[in-house]
């Protein structure tokens, strides 16, 4: 039913850094729920969202859990297609060795292709 360029049901775009707001957590929750319903999910970490992948995050100063523990669970939910904006890695000086999880860097052209290749895009 799907053509060869179809990468999955759901693309969740995460554009916010951890701890500063609930966007990242609420975006990840949507991804986990979709995966639990056996949907194929791709995550795209865009702009500040790339910082979600940084190793060494902790709890917040008031004991807020943050999102690193959720990222650690992605594999259990079979969410293994992780993309990260190339430009964000450059902007923040991040390289693969500093990331919690492997994510494939993508440029603008590839991002547009990913948006076109999913049945549903949720942008957080």
């Amino acid at each position, binding site marked *: 039913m799907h053509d060869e360029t179809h990468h999955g049901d759901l693309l969740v775009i995460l*554009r916010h850094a951890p701890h500063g707001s609930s966007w990242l957590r609420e975006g990840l929750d949507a991804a986990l729920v979709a995966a639990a319903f056996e949907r194929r999910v791709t995550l795209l970490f865009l702009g500040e969202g790339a910082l979600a992948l940084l190793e060494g995050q902790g709890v917040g100063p008031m004991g807020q859990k943050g999102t690193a523990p959720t990222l650690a669970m992605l594999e259990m939910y079979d969410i293994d297609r992780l993309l990260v904006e190339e430009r964000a890695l450059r902007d923040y000086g991040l390289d693969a060795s500093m990331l919690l999880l492997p994510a494939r860097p993508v440029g603008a052209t590839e*991002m*547009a292709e990913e*948006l076109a290749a999913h049945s549903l895009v949720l942008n957080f």
Partner: protein
Amino acid sequence: MLLHILNRAPDTPACRQALSALGPADRLLLIEDGVIGALPAQRAAFPGVEGRLYALHEDLEARGLLGRHADGIQVVDVEGFVALTEACERTVSWY
């Protein structure tokens, strides 16, 4: 072909991200504070989107921007907004 919906002004991360994820045939609709990008002085903010850039009539009007917007921007009302979502395969909102 996708419809991208932008409700933020040009000098925001949301606008940069929308432009960077825009496919070559995708359309971009400016709504709410996004219509600030319709000002002629902001023209340089949307390179390569000629003929694919729309702005919502009602939101231009409320802000006093109707008639002050740049040439080449296609003005649609809310019915035209619905029509754009019909014509495009999917929508992505940037906020």
